[in-house]
């Protein structure tokens, strides 16, 4: 399936501020194919996270258009956009953002629980056995022995592994990763990235990876560079 997963047209994001409006994105047009891995790089504050949020439909652009899975996002309200993501989109964040009061296993089961409301779709594992699925994914990221540990009992690298498991457990069509190694040391970071690409390949996931690390970006099939809100 070699169709387009995400397409944007002249994306602009401005933030109203006292005095002058702050322009974060000034016309970004890009296209990402299904199954492709894409890196977005740029210096800190160049608007990478903002762009990622727009691509995932977390927010709406000031002007310009986004198509996710071939569907226009403008005109959809927050909940409709959320429903589009349900089970089809995974996230990995720089600071992990695991739920503190849930164990590793419960964190990974969360997306499965959320998407039970939906009719089954191809990406989704069969109903029932959620716990089994979550266990398996955690084993794949090497945390089979830490199922009942809480986030604060895990190291940064281990937390990010749980986050990876959580992101891939629904076999999403697209995975958005925002500087997933930003809070980790080099070695651990490499392990996480290896794991990330391994899982991406295994599940044929479209990957949108935001990073400021050029060597990392080089491992992706496509590379966009953001400079002052525009693609360079």
């Amino acid at each position, binding site marked *: 399936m070699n169709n387009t997963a995400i397409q944007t047209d002249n994306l602009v994001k401005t933030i109203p501020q006292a005095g002058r409006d702050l322009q974060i994105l000034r016309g970004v047009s890009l296209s990402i194919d299904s199954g492709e891995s894409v890196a977005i790089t740029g210096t800190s504050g160049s608007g990478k*996270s903002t762009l990622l949020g727009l691509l995932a439909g*977390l927010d709406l652009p000031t002007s310009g258009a986004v198509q996710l899975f071939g569907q226009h996002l403008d005109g959809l309200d927050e909940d409709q956009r959320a429903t589009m993501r349900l089970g089809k989109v995974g996230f990995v964040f720089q*600071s992990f953002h695991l739920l503190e009061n849930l164990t590793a296993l419960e964190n990974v089961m969360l997306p499965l629980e959320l998407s039970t409301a939906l009719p089954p779709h191809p990406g989704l594992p069969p109903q029932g056995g959620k716990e089994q699925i979550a266990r398996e994914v955690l084993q794949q990221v090497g945390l089979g022995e830490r199922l009942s540990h809480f986030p604060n009992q895990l190291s940064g690298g281990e937390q990010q592994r749980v986050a990876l498991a959580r992101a891939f457990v629904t076999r999403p069509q697209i995975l958005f990763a925002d500087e997933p190694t930003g809070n980790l040391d080099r070695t651990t970071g490499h392990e996480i990235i290896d794991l990330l690409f391994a899982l991406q390949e295994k599940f044929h996931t479209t990957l949108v990876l935001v990073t400021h690390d050029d060597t990392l970006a080089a491992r992706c099939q496509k590379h966009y560079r953001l400079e002052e809100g525009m693609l360079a």
Partner: protein
Amino acid sequence: MKLLLHHWLQRWRMPEMRLLLLALTVSVTVVTAVGFFTSRVENAMQAQARQLLGGDLVLSSARPLDDAYLQRGQQLGLETAQTISFPSMAASGDKLQLSQLKAVSSAYPLRGELKTAAAPDAPEQASTGQLPARGEIWAEARLFAELGVKAGEQVQLGRSTFKLARVLTQEPDRSSNLFQLAPVVLMNLDDLPATELLSPASRARFNQLFAGEEKLVKQLQQELELKLKPTERIRTLEEDLSSVQQTLQRSGRFLGLATLLSVVLAGAAVVLTSSSLMRRELPAVAVLKAMGMSRRQVLRDHAFSLLLTALLAALAGVALGFVLQFGLAEWLSQFVGKDLPAPSSAPALSGLLTAIILLLGFALPQLLRLVNTSPMQILQGTLQRPRQSVWLVVACLLLAVFGLLWLQSRDLQLAGMLFAGLLAGIGLFWLLAKAFLRLTQVVGRKLHSRWIPSLGRSRRAVLLVVVFATGLFSLLLLTTVRTDLLNRWQETLPPDAPDNFLINIQPAEVKPLEAFLAGHGVKTHLYPMVRGRLVEINGQPVQPEDYENQRAQRLLEREFNLSSFAEFPSSNALLEGKWFKQGETGFSIEKGIGETLSFGMGDKLTFDIAGQRLSDTVTSVREVRWDSMQPNFFVIAAPGSLGDMPSTHITSIHLGEKKAIVTDMIRQFPSVTVIDVAAIVAQVRSLVEQASMAVQGIFVFTLIAGVVVLIAALQSQKAERRREIAILKSLGAGRAELRRRIWGEFLLLGALAGVLAGLLALTAGNLFGYYLFDLDMKLDLMPLLVGGVVGSLLVGVAGFWNLRGLLNVLPMSLLKA
């Protein structure tokens, strides 16, 4: 559903959830405990009120009733009976006891039944159709105990001697056993004349009872209403029931309102915990939204969780409240009797409502914030709280508080007043706490402490002091008012203040009694007393209906006591006009009654005294000290104006050690009733003590709620403190040093709150005493001391307990993201 339940269970891992549950449970417990208790008392009273009359219709008067009424009832085919009751002394050997004598005719009671026992500890039996035989009396167990007699022994009443045959355990129309001080003695009506106890001026209540077919009773009622004299009154079931209910509802409401302080404090705890709960959930919700959770799902998830928590709290609170009300009933058993019926289930519902209102009003705004969290935040470094209109939060809060007040008072106007009072009170506390903390800052700086001033600066410290001081304040206030006022009231009485009232002294007994008392060295002054009803003011007839004021209506319905003498009463103060000179006529009135019934100097009053009219002009106004232990009168007529109107005399005497002469006195003057004030004061005192203990019990909950708020406040600043401790550790502070700081901080804050509460309780107590009870101001440092010590201990322990885990925080944690 299963999923929602699952999430709810997972939330229990957060301490905030447990606190939320605790806060809600405390408020539901106190609301339901009091609710259950008052509903039991209400049920008891209603059951009693149903038999209260002893008939379907009762004609009641302070004067003997015309037999024509009875005959008319019999003509209609109704059953009839008669009762006459009045206080009288019962004597056996050298023991005396004031009793409530009740003489009844043969058909009594027409409704309800009498229950008796062979001896005070023997089983109770229904006495079907039986009454005391001629020459016999039945009496309540208390009379047996006070006189030290057994069943079958002799008891003297007036000029007759009776055999005390049985113990009276229940009679249907017991007038008001809530405050009945004297034991009831039941006798045959035919025996009454021989006792010579009843005279035209006795304080007796004459009743004619009718029972039968409802239609006929109604017909009689209509006929009687046309014929009745102003002093005669028809009592029906509905009327009695509603007045009893009103009184009860009012006192129930008062107790209910006493619980509100705890509920409002618990509300503060709910606000604190739900806001820190929200802060904790914020990132989670943002992540979940990024993963595709909709706003509706977020709302459903959290609303479900909160409601389930409320439900759980309600269940726990209702169960606890149910258990606690037994304690309350036990505490107040002297008031309400031992055998209360089961409570109704309504209080459980209002407990649940309380929990839901608390949650909706205090936690809902936080929940809405959560729902509106943008998932975009998760990509930006810092998580800001979604902006939320402060007005929405405040509006929800105020609405909830008002709702709670309304729920408890069931009275919109009262709720409004309380609401305003509450806001003003909290505002006052807030300002005072702030000022107090500012003061400690200044003092701290003087002491060259860098640590004390920093304490007073945080807004949380103010909150903590306010909340805790409120809890302690109510408790301390009650303690001071209770012990202090009662003690000081007795102190204000001079040692030779009269300790016994003698009433019902017949005209013929005046001279011999004066001689008798003088013979024993007892100073006395006997005042004549007639009972009259005010019928005209300035020639215009007056009716109870003319007045809106309930007290005015009651005064006009009843007869009140008039006297007539030459010497100005020493315990009164002349406010207007002049006291009677030789040969002058006129009335001297008490200030209060003039104000209530709107008459004063120069107005012409007409009284109906047993059918004779007495008219005169008001020539002076007096202020009366009712607690002077002297006979006091609303209206005093110029000497000689009472003529031959039926009168008795009244006096108060100081007996002190000469108590023993009472026995002799009663022998010689059998109709004289002696009222031992000391005994009554002691009894009233113990009643007041018990009642205030119960209220204090409720305020203990206020304190508990205060502690919950305290913990909630501590919990909400835990993250901040964790950072602070890590920083201090990285700078080289040891555990001992940290421990000292934590203890120091909370002991000091607690002491501040306690002293503030003590100060306010002292002030309020003094103001109460000064304005309500005419007592002198007094500086008693006890509340300050108690407040300071209790406050610092409670806050210190709670604070340290809550933060003890943080001592193990590693400075390393600062390095984690």
